[in-house]
């Protein structure tokens, strides 16, 4: 547990020192959300209907953008070698990094979302359900993204490849989250969707650090 706490503390400190990055990621998120109404035009009803989808796609893309940095700087300055050779299991350190990434990029995104749903004209009920799906879903995005980053961190141009590897893993989360919001809106039961999202969350947090750690070792060699 010490290892996890150490990584979280270190990552938060580093994120604080580079807070401009953090703001940029949030700006990116809001920009994507804003682009959709601009593209759709003055059709408030349509915008409100697709609002959950817009928010989710924007969240997905902004996580994809920010996750790339999680291991890249560690790889470049040689810290990754030291993490692998440390006394602690690498998968625990990785878990710490995933949690820290969620705290730094997922949580601010959650805080910003109510404002954006207001802007998109989403009703309060759906907005609450959407927030719940984001709360459960964004840690999954961080965890699954870490696998992709770990696989591509050794490559000089890993960006597009990262998207190709990670987006398929994101699709199930996106599907169940948006379906859940739609079901809630229609008054249908959401227990099945909710339990799927919770299952994703538990699986991602417990299992994703293992392939991530293995992939980091491969990338360093």
């Amino acid at each position, binding site marked *: 547990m010490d290892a996890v706490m150490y990584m979280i503390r270190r990552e938060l400190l580093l994120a604080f020192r580079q807070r401009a990055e953090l703001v940029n990621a949030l700006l990116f998120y809001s920009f994507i959300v804003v682009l959709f109404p601009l593209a759709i035009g003055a059709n408030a009803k349509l915008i409100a209907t697709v609002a959950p989808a817009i928010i989710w796609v924007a969240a997905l893309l902004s996580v994809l953008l920010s996750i790339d940095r999680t291991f890249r700087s560690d790889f470049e300055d040689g810290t990754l070698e030291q993490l692998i050779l440390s006394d602690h299991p690498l998968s625990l350190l990785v878990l710490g990094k995933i949690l820290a990434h969620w705290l730094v990029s997922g949580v601010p995104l959650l805080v910003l979302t109510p404002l954006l749903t207001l802007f998109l004209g989403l009703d309060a009920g759906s907005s609450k359900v959407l927030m719940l799906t984001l709360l459960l879903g964004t840690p999954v995005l961080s965890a699954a993204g870490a696998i992709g980053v770990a*696989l591509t961190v050794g*490559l000089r141009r890993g960006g597009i*490849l990262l998207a190709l590897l990670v987006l398929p893993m994101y699709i*199930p989360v996106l599907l169940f989250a948006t379906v859940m919001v739609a079901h809630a809106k229609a008054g249908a039961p959401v227990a099945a969707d909710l339990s799927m999202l919770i299952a994703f969350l538990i699986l991602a947090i417990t299992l994703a650090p293992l392939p991530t750690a293995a992939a980091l070792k491969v990338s360093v060699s």
Partner: protein
Amino acid sequence: MKFPFMPFLHRISSPPRFYRMACRWIPRLGWTGLIFMLVGLVWGLGFAPPDYQQGNAFRIMYIHVPSAWLSLFIYTVMAVSAVIAFVWRIKLAEVMIIANAPIGATFTFLALVTGSIWGKPMWGTYWVWDPRLTFELILLFQYFGVIALYTAITDRRVGARAAAILAMVGIVTVPIVHYSVVWWSSLHQGSSFKTLDNPAIAWSMLVPLLIMFIGTNLFYLAVVFLRSRNELLLREKQTAWVGEILDKGV
């Protein structure tokens, strides 16, 4: 990790031995597969009775069902090779991952395309966002991911290890595709096979399907041997046994 069958695994996976075996089996498997496929296709497209509901449109099944099966089967083979490659670092298993990926991607693509063509007369649309179709599409992306990751890494062995991790992670999609028609209410129809005692479709339609099935599987084996043989030769080109083969001018 040590297991009792390890010496056996190492012996059968020795590259020169595999090369000789592949050379012997490729023509046999390939030609038998092609003959079966030809018979199955002619029978299925020309002689099997039309379906009482779907008319002649169902005949695309003779390509669609074997492709869909292979898309899942090949991924499973790839993931098993990945486990062997990752845990025991057997070169042949590394080669198998890369040899399988493009074949799997092709059959997945074929399954999606034939499915769309079948969907148009049946569902009135080429594509629906149905769980089975969606996850089959994800499977296609996963194949692309494995290929792209392997080609992006210059060192072949490192690339194979990275691709192995990705292939292992992606195996979750295979059961999801397989059980999707059971788990979710879906437009996609249920399995045509189920049990042989009580098939979901008539025997006169099933026999050509089984022949196609055997044919495509044999064909797949021939292609995977062909591809892995070439990849192995490329990887081992500095070794003595490849040198001997080159000298003989095969």
